[in-house]
């Protein structure tokens, strides 16, 4: 009896451990077909436009062309994908191909194939140069850009006209004077929407810092979060937008989605936005204009570029099959379909040409021009994910009393993260 209880206990414990550890294995079945495991982020916001639809269709067509390879598609929503991927990595149950927001942290743990190992030369050459380079860690490309977006200044034409502002601001002083006039003509409107909340503090901060010749790293790739130019940027924001009440009362607690929603509801005069704001503005019947990002003295000719990434894991050793799959996924037909499905910007030359010249994407045209000149986060730095998380959390408070202290604390954390590598 005692023995039986023990055995039962052992089985129960064993079962729990087993379910906790989960799958693994090479994915090769008896008849020689091999299963590639694809994990991808969901760009849709409802069942009908879920990325599952896109990937399953693509997998089906790929399997038809390559009968020996099966593709197991798993689409995860943006909120959970980081945690789920972490769990997969921790439990040794890694995907073959992953499409998500960042790649460099996985390079630090030596989990990924180099891009040249899993892309044919033709596919690789087809990637837009700036994006391909943003996929490099120490000069070697691991991250394969998948979709992109770029930022520009959106302004509400009606609010501007009512305030007597005739052209979009080019410099910071223009922003300030336009904001002051909007405050007078429309007191209920937020003149400039400055979202420095945890959702994307790292984005809005960098856009402003670029305007002052600052940024997150120096030419050697060392973190310069508390450089003079950056501190000055936040001091300017505090003194000219926050304290006079020309933006939200608490920018550090205001998320981008709030700012976007306010703009789309006609409650914000101007803000830095990306292409998804186009549709939102149309839905809200807001007559918007798009202009280059204003800098301290003149409009910037570059902008913040953001890309999402594709990467291939070495763990299960499916290099050949991954190459076939990625070459298929990066064909013009497929990338164009994905970009048009979600109104995203392409990262491949042929698709960019097609979308620029087809005339179907008039709205996106100002952004197409910006793409080849985009600046990026220090994506290739393997500590960036940790540093970015810190900036999201506390970066926004730099518009508070003491920018130098907030940025100095962040810089310390960034240096510590670098030292821990």
């Amino acid at each position, binding site marked *: 009896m005692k023995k039986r209880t023990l055995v039962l206990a052992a089985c129960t*414990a064993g079962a729990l451990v087993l379910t906790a550890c989960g799958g693994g294995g090479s994915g090769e079945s008896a008849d020689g077909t091999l299963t590639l495991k694809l994990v991808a982020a969901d760009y849709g916001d409802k069942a009908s436009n879920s990325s599952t639809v896109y990937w399953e269709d693509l997998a089906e067509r790929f399997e038809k062309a390559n009968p020996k390879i099966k593709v197991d598609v798993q689409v995860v929503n943006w909120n959970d994908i980081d945690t789920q*991927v972490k769990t997969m*990595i*921790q439990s040794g149950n890694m995907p073959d191909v992953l499409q998500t927001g960042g790649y460099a*942290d996985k390079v630090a743990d030596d989990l990924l194939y180099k891009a040249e190992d899993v892309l044919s030369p033709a596919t690789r050459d087809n990637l837009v140069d700036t994006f391909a380079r943003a996929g490099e860690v120490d000069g070697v490309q691991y991250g394969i850009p998948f979709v992109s977006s770029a930022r520009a200044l959106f302004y509400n034409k009606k609010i501007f006209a009512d305030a007597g502002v005739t052209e979009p601001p080019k410099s910071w002083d223009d922003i300030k004077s336009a904001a002051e006039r909007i405050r007078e003509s429309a007191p209920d409107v937020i003149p400039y929407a400055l979202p420095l*909340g945890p959702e994307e503090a790292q984005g809005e901060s960098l856009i402003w810092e670029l305007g002052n010749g600052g940024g997150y790293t120096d030419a050697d790739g060392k973190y310069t979060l508390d450089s003079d130019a950056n501190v000055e940027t936040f001091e300017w924001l505090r003194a000219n937008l926050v304290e006079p009440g020309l933006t939200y009362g608490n920018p*550090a607690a205001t998320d981008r989605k709030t700012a976007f929603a306010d703009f789309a509801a006609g409650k914000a005069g101007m803000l830095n936005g990306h292409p998804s704001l186009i549709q939102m503005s149309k839905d809200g019947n807001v007559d918007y204009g798009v202009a280059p990002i204003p800098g301290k003295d003149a409009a910037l000719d570059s902008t913040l570029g953001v890309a999402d990434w594709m990467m291939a894991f070495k763990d299960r050793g499916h290099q050949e099959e991954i190459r076939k799959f990625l070459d298929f996924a990066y064909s013009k037909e497929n990338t164009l379909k994905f970009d048009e499905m979600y109104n995203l910007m392409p990262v491949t030359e042929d698709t960019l040409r097609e979308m620029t010249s087809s005339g179907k994407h008039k709205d996106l045209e100002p952004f197409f021009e910006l793409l080849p000149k985009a600046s990026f986060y220090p994506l290739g730095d393997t500590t960036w994910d*940790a540093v970015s*998380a810190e900036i999201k959390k506390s970066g926004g408070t730099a518009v508070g009393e003491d920018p130098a202290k907030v940025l100095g604390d962040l810089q310390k954390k960034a240096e510590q993260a670098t030292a821990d590598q």
Partner: protein
Amino acid sequence: MSSKVTAGGRRPPRTGRSGTRRSGLGRLGPLPWIGPAVLLIVVVVLWPVYEMVRTSFLKISVSGFVRGWAGLDKYRQLFDEPGLGSVITATVVWTVGVVALTMVLSLALAQLFDQRFPGRRVTRWALIAPWAASVLMTAIGFKWMLDRTAGVLNTVMTDLGIIDTPRDWLGDPATAWPWMMFVAVFVSLPFTTYTLLAGLQTVPGEVYEAARVDGAGVWQTYRRITLPLLRPAFLVGVVINLINVFNSFPVIWGMTRGGPDSDTATTTVFMYQLKSSDIGESAAMSVVNFALVVVMVAAFLKVSRWNQEEV
């Protein structure tokens, strides 16, 4: 027949075995019966605690890859966090403030619901509502009611002239804390009130009668009779609320996510914030939290001498 006898002759050793088995079972006592429960506790309580402590000594990369032993590094890193001091202060104020307010209000409410009045049944039911609703749902509900542009509470307060223009209550720690404490008290009231109400109903009527005969006033009766007899229920309420409020995650996460920065975070929320940058450090915070809760409850029980019936 003889073979049967022989077979029967073999029986004694067998009965002997089953005899030992029985006495073995007897020696196990209640173990086979509580075994499953013990196993459950080991698997869902002790094992996670062990894993939590172990994780706090590990170096884990952002991608989730275990890079080896970190020793006490994660604890050192945690205590070097510039925000930790204010987070701990906030946690103490939060816990003490919410529990004290809850207990005081619940005492009054319990007294009220112990009276007979028309509609008592309905109001008693109504009191359950904040308890029955998901705390996260309540928190998100209040977050939207307090929204700067669309919040109904903002509109009402502006219309009543309490404030001039709609305010961003939750964006500023100075106003976010009182609102979050209000919501935390709101969701803690039902349980506490019912605990105290149950306590009130165990006080025998004769005691009150005796007090009346002796000429004790209302206040005197309450202080000298009701409160002492309510003590066990009161202590249960305090201890459970201490643990609940200290660990209260959904109210704060639902309303401010601990932000801006960690200005509206308690240690529990701070632990969750750390998770995005360093799991090891976050686990270290959990261990500290765990220790804090144990110490806090032990200290309270000692001070209140909970196992002594008499005051």
